[in-house]
């Protein structure tokens, strides 16, 4: 097998607990996003656009949808004679087997896979972040700095630093201290969960951790990185300037969709210089009827719009009947919205039927609060005729 300079290991086992009904049957990286995609399309497309053609995808929680979605990897041009994409679930070895205990343990359990390619560097990615990033530039930075470890970071507002792992750096961007979700942050550079390691070092630390520490959580943030820092390895922060979002909650998931709209969207998916690839289902063109009223929305193929759609994102196969109104909402694939139904500030799952004259997310019991409440309808639900689902409710 020819040697690869850098291969990517994509952590895709996350459960995404805070997304509730959206991850009932699928791992978080398989969550649909942006009318056409799933979250994992972003790191996979970034890899292919960055010239990284060997990618291991580490799966664990509810992997079926994800496995069949990834398939041969051809959707991302990652069906290669050498390398390409390989799905890596936990497996049984001579001495038994176990689930992936944590992020680092998942890599540790696949040392054999990485050794096949004998890489100089290993790029660690999360399967559930939305961003467009050139990993080749980060590798250049890593080499220029002569780093042992580079961590992708981005500036976050100071008032949010307590939600992130914060990197304290010197003027040369060298990381001198790491604070996990600090009360009083000294810096506002937050880790994006993207690491480049010199494989030789990472391999050594992973083996040491596994062999010497039986109770290890097998986690990069808690176990491996603090140990490497203590040993004075060269850590550098690579600052990323573009759009990045961890859609960890219902609110951030909804907000990330709103970021796709507007005159100049903060996240531009139509950029042909950095295409986000997906499995791209074959559907007929989208049809807007004589009565359709569409404004500030992103709509995929295979949709039929006979009603009103405003400030919304519609996935493939969605049908909005005459006199139905969809506003400020995200409608997942193949959902039918029958006539007279009204939906606002909602996320509606796939294959849902919203029967005639139903209201979703329009009214609230809590009249005092001005806080935005997102209503969520889980996959395959049927919302009966003329029902009234109050704002902030979760069905499913």
């Amino acid at each position, binding site marked *: 097998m020819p040697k690869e300079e850098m291969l990517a290991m994509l952590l895709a086992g996350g459960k995404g607990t805070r997304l509730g009904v959206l991850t009932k049957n699928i791992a978080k990286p398989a969550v649909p996003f942006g009318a056409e995609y799933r979250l994992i399309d972003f790191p996979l497309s970034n890899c292919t656009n960055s010239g990284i053609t060997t990618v291991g995808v580490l799966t664990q929680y509810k992997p079926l949808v994800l496995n069949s979605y990834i398939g041969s990897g051809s959707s991302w041009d990652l069906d290669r004679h050498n390398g390409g994409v390989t799905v890596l679930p936990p497996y049984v070895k001579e001495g038994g087997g176990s689930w992936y205990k944590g992020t680092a343990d998942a890599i540790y359990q696949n040392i054999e896979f990485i050794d096949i390619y004998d890489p100089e560097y290993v790029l660690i990615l999360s399967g559930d972040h939305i961003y467009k990033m050139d990993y080749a530039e980060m590798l250049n930075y890593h080499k220029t700095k002569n780093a042992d470890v580079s961590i992708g970071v981005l500036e976050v507002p100071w008032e949010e630093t307590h939600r992130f792992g914060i990197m304290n750096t010197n003027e040369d961007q060298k990381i001198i201290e790491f604070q996990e979700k600090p009360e009083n942050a000294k810096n506002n550079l937050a880790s994006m969960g993207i690491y480049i390691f010199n494989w030789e070092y990472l391999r050594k630390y992973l083996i040491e951790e596994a062999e010497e520490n039986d109770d290890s959580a097998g986690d990069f943030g808690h176990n491996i990185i603090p140990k490497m820092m203590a040993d004075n390895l060269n850590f550098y922060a690579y600052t990323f300037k573009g759009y990045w979002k961890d859609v960890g909650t219902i609110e951030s998931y909804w907000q990330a969709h709103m970021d796709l709209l507007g005159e100049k969207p903060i996240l531009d998916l139509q950029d042909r210089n950095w295409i986000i690839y997906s499995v791209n289902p074959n559907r007929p063109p989208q049809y807007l009827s004589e009565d*359709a009223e569409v404004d*500030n929305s992103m709509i995929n193929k295979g949709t039929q719009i006979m009603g009103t759609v405003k400030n919304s994102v519609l996935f493939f196969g969605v049908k909005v009947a005459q006199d139905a109104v969809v506003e400020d909402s995200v409608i997942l694939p193949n959902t039918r919205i029958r006539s007279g139904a009204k939906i606002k500030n909602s996320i509606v799952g796939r294959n849902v039927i919203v029967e005639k004259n139903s209201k979703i997310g329009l009214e609230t019991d809590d009249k005092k609060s001005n806080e935005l409440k997102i209503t969520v309808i889980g996959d395959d639900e049927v919302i009966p005729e003329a029902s009234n689902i109050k704002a902030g409710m979760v069905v499913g």
Partner: protein
Amino acid sequence: MMMTPIYKKGGANMNNVMAIINNALDESFLDKLTGHRSLASVPFGARYRLIDFPLSNMVNSGITNVGLLLQTKYRSLMDHIGFGKAWDLDRKRNGLFILPPAHIYQANRAYKGDLQNFASNIDYIKRSNQEYVIIGSPNVVANIDYRDAFKYHIENDNDITIIYRQLEVFRRDTTYTVINTDDNDRIIDMKVNPKKNFYKKISLQRYIMKKELLLDIIDECISKGEWDFVKNAIIGNLNNLKVYGYPFRSYAAVINSINGYYKSNLELLKPNVWQDLFLKNGPIYTKPKDEAPTGYKNGVNARNILAANGCSIKGEVKNSVLFRGVKVHPGAVIKNSIIMQKSEIGENAYLENVILDKGVQITADKSLKGDTNLPMIIAKNTIV
């Protein structure tokens, strides 16, 4: 000796049928639209090329061996088809076969007719292990299940079965291959593009027969100096062979003129046509392009349109078909038009009854108007 039944109850066994799509046709009637591409790769219906329809129909009917006869300007067609992956035709056994016009290298290079294309690729036809063949042309837009027609072909013990459609309205602005049948659907007369004395039944240019019969007919025709598939191989045999018609009753459009092309595109905006074509008998496949979904911006006014992905629409668009990646700037107005891939319509431009080929740029404030019966065509990559 008992013959092995070639279809089982509940459906014809299409493993025993191969298909040939004949692209060696006159395509000059589409003017600028076929100036640089073959008829088969002319864009149609917001995200398709004409060939997607017959090719998808064949695949959906269970045919796994398809040969494409080529004649001229086939670069864009080859680019579109590739190895046939989009149609699931990248197979180890059978699959898609590109059949180039080898005769163009012969000493006497005068082109005689499409039977020459069959003859140049006779080895492919002989080598294929299917017993039956469906021959089709790319310029008929329909969603046909060939299993029914094939079943009829076998049950009625026909030599040749031609799929036809009875027209309610006979378009004078286009040309047809017309047929006349007796009460039992036996074809008693057939004419190619007659100017008068036409019939209301039109051939959908799908011909089913035994492969051996096709080989015999080709040999017979060529040895007599006859080179036209429809006129010589089919019409020439109406009296010698058992040639029957199979009526197809759903939507079908024959693209044989600019106006027919224009009207058939706009006809897709009728929900019943749209449903006949896209939601029955399996999907129409095409080469995927990884375009992001279409963005409708603030203040857009889009009604009665079909649009592909990757468009960014800010102006007013009505009764029109938009292919992928079209940009419509604020204040622009588009009516009754067909706008192909990557075309851009500048601010306050006005387009009515217009066909823009790929990559056309209409600069701000320009106004272009064709007639309902004579659309204005703007050639590929033109800047207006």
